[in-house]
């Protein structure tokens, strides 16, 4: 019985790999399975190699596995590129001309089928693009899925936007593929998947989950500039925000995006922006302004591979320290790092409340993998969402006030806020050092007090922040520390280690700043071998830990600075090696 299966679709940019993968993921989700997807795309519109993996499992999964069970290749190159990943009994469908087979010692046990998808599509449906739907039909057969599931998906996708005829043609093509697959594959080659109830779950990407979280949290203003892989957040929200009375503005650049977000927030909106790589660097100046003028702001940063323009379609965790130590001057900030799509939702909601409560910028730091890949998760419970606007006053509360102080020196350092148009609340949001009312002040004593006010605001914040989460066996000697999208691979690796009788624990940081030093210190004290797992070159998280937890024992780095996400193996192996 199959309980876990990975299907890879590979071809060239322009082949429709994305479409095919997305539909397949949805299909398997509707079949009741848990889903994790992963894409490896070039930064080019046409012509270069592309692949998309859908892993499905009967049990809860968070990451990819080490192998591919079925490869659907739109050309022969893809076979050669991915052969090492294909499972011993794997199946390959290929639409290559003249399929050049790899040497037999590499193909033993695997099944190869030539499947003239393009030709069939042209012949039967007049257009090459139907190749993708034919392929989906074929996969439906191979996995023994209910063909009507695909029909449903097509009508959801096309009925409203493209009409009945398009739906019909797609359904037809899928059936055609289904039958064709039956013709060319032996019954024994099928990988039939048990159907499970498709209960209260959704299939969602991190970017969408952040969008949905923002919508639920009352975000009503979004300003951003296009950049991969972050644009999807606002391009999702742009469909909903206006209906909720809000607005999405595409700005001329990222400088404008964050400054505009600050203007909107100053005037009363829950406002947000999103960006990646180069755009984040451009936001550093206004980030500092948010800190100085104490303006709530939420920034989603979906990390891609740097430096400079880097590799815009590859994932990385190489911008961590930028948000913590970057920008000029010293000011309070909060950096959150969700590790699952569910946390993308929860931490986004939290980000808005934290921004309002502590009147400072809050960064939601994710990665391309987290942002663009899909995962199944329990449907979000909106009734649990709370909107807390902190010390935002109201026109009523200001009645009778004669001496409103926007930057009042309070015990907790957080001051009451008024909004433009509110009587008695007139003040200045000031980028220069200022007095309690917001006006420029160069008095040394005032400076000291204002720095202390701002910098101590977060001293008592820890109950409101997302504490680290511990996974695995309480007493294990092996301890992992990580954050964000490496979670899936770490959990898979822990399972593989468990099987090898090496129990392990994992401290998943969800707030990177203010740094959860007590929890990390405790975890360090309790584990013998600590591995900090990061998708970057220099071990940014390990650097951060060392700078914040002192004394700090030895930290071993498990780093991956390649263009691919961690495989579980890449984590298991160094651990086993270090224990030999």
């Amino acid at each position, binding site marked *: 019985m199959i309980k876990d299966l990975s299907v890879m679709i590979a071809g060239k940019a322009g082949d429709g790999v994305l479409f095919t993968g997305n539909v397949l993921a949805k299909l398997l989700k509707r079949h009741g399975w848990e889903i994790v997807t992963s894409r490896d795309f070039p930064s080019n519109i046409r012509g270069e190699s592309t692949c998309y993996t859908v892993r499905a499992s009967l049990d809860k999964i968070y990451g990819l596995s080490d192998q591919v069970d079925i490869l659907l290749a739109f050309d022969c190159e893809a076979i050669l590129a991915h052969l090492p990943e294909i499972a011993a009994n794997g199946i390959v469908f290929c639409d290559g001309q003249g399929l050049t087979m790899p040497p037999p010692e590499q193909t033993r046990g695997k099944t190869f089928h030539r499947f003239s998808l393009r030709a069939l599509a042209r012949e039967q449906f007049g257009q090459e693009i139907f190749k993708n739907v034919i392929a989906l039909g074929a996969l439906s057969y191979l996995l023994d899925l209910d063909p009507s599931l695909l029909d449903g998906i097509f009508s959801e996708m096309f009925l409203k936007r493209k009409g009945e005829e398009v739906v019909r043609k797609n359904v037809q093509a899928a059936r055609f593929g289904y039958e064709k697959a039956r013709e060319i594959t032996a019954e024994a080659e099928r990988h039939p998947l048990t159907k499970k109830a*498709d209960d209260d779950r*959704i*299939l*969602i990407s991190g970017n*969408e989950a952040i969008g*949905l979280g923002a*919508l639920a949290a*009352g975000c*009503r*203003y979004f*300003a951003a500039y296009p950049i991969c892989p972050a644009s999807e957040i606002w391009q999702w929200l742009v469909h909903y925000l*206006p*209906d*909720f*009375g*809000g*607005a999405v*503005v595409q*700005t*001329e*650049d990222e*400088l*404008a*995006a964050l*400054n*505009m*977000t*600050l*203007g*909107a*927030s*100053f*005037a*009363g*909106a829950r*406002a947000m922006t999103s960006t990646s790589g180069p755009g984040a660097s451009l936001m550093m*100046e*206004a980030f500092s*302004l948010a800190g100085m003028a104490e303006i709530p702001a939420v920034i989603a940063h979906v990390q891609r591979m740097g430096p400079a323009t880097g590799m815009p379609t590859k994932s990385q965790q190489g911008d961590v320290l930028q948000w913590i130590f970057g920008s000029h001057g010293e000011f309070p900030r909060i950096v959150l790092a969700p590790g699952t799509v569910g946390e993308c939702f929860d931490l986004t909601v939290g980000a808005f409340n934290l921004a309002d409560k502590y009147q400072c910028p809050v960064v939601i730091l994710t990665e391309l993998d987290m942002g663009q890949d899909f995962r199944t998760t329990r*449907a979000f419970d*909106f*009734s649990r969402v709370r*909107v807390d*606007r902190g010390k935002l006053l109201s026109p009523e509360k200001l009645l009778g006030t004669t001496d409103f102080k926007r930057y009042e020196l309070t015990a907790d350092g957080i001051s009451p806020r008024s*909004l*433009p*148009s509110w*009587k*008695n*609340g*007139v*003040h*200045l*949001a*000031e*980028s*220069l050092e200022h007095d309690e009312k*917001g*006006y*420029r002040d160069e008095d040394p004593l005032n400076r000291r007090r204002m720095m202390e006010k701002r910098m101590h605001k977060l001293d008592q914040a820890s109950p409101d922040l997302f504490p680290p989460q511990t996974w695995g066996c309480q007493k294990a000697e092996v301890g992992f520390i990580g954050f964000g999208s490496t979670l899936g691979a770490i959990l898979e690796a822990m399972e593989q280690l468990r099987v090898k009788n090496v129990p392990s624990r994992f401290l998943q940081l969800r707030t990177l700043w203010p740094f959860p030093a007590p929890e990390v210190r405790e975890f360090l004290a309790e584990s013998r071998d600590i591995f900090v797992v990061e998708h970057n070159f220099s071990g940014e998280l390990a650097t951060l830990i060392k700078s914040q937890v002192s004394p700090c024992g030895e930290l071993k780095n498990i780093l991956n600075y390649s263009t691919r996400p961690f495989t579980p193996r890449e984590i298991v192996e160094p651990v086993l090696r270090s224990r030999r």
Partner: protein
Amino acid sequence: MKVKESYHRLDPTWCKGCGLFGVFDALKRAAVALDIEPEELVIVTGIGCHGRLNNYFRAYGFHGLHGRTMPVATGIKLVNPSLQVVAVSGDGDAYSIGLGHFLHSVRKNIGLTYIVVDNRIYALTLGQASPTTDFGTVTVSTPLGSKDFPIDGPSLALAAGGTFIARGFSGEVAHLASLIERGMKHNGLALIDILSPCVTYNKVNSYDWYKKHIFHVEDLPGYSPKDKAKAWEALISPEKIAVGLIYEEDKPSFEELVLPDRERPIASLDLKVDVLRLGKIQDRFR
């Protein structure tokens, strides 16, 4: 009924004779004329001597970063379009580091009044050449004379599709006040570029110099601010600097176009979690 004192917070400490006093006064007069509550007025300033205005003028204010008045002001305006949002920049702030934002705000026709106090110098940073400094001018940054050809904000605004383009002179406060007042009533972005002497760092473009070098478009026979070709001619006139309301056009403002409901400003939306509605949206992910 407002009086000028309604908007007075502090006496300015600009250098005696600085053109900014005229701007300060004109802005107060315009506010009086429109009878605006100080609470309904938001002044967004850039960084420079002009940016000190917020300290002196009683109204809500946002003194942000150098060159970024426009995006900040836009954020404010869109979130609460009933506010009167006035941005004040210098020539460096608006036409150098902020040039891109300026022109994009113009083309979007956002409902802002943009006052650019052009003293043809970087004053607060002690006197470097600015994008409007005359060719050949000696400054601390151009000891051999500036080698840059100056640019003209109003011409650029016209080319970017601006719908209200005016130029005033801080030596003519009443006239300037009336331009600002009209600008504040305009639906869309109103640029009021102001010729304004910096008595400390710009010894060339003084009050007297301007008096000799300006002309009022109102004085041109048959001039109509609705005629774009005429406006262009007035602006590229090589002899003298055009002052007055140079160009005006009706075009929908950005707020009009993008805000779903101008009567329910974003700033005062109820953010209660609509569980049902969100649930329906979530269903698309099932």
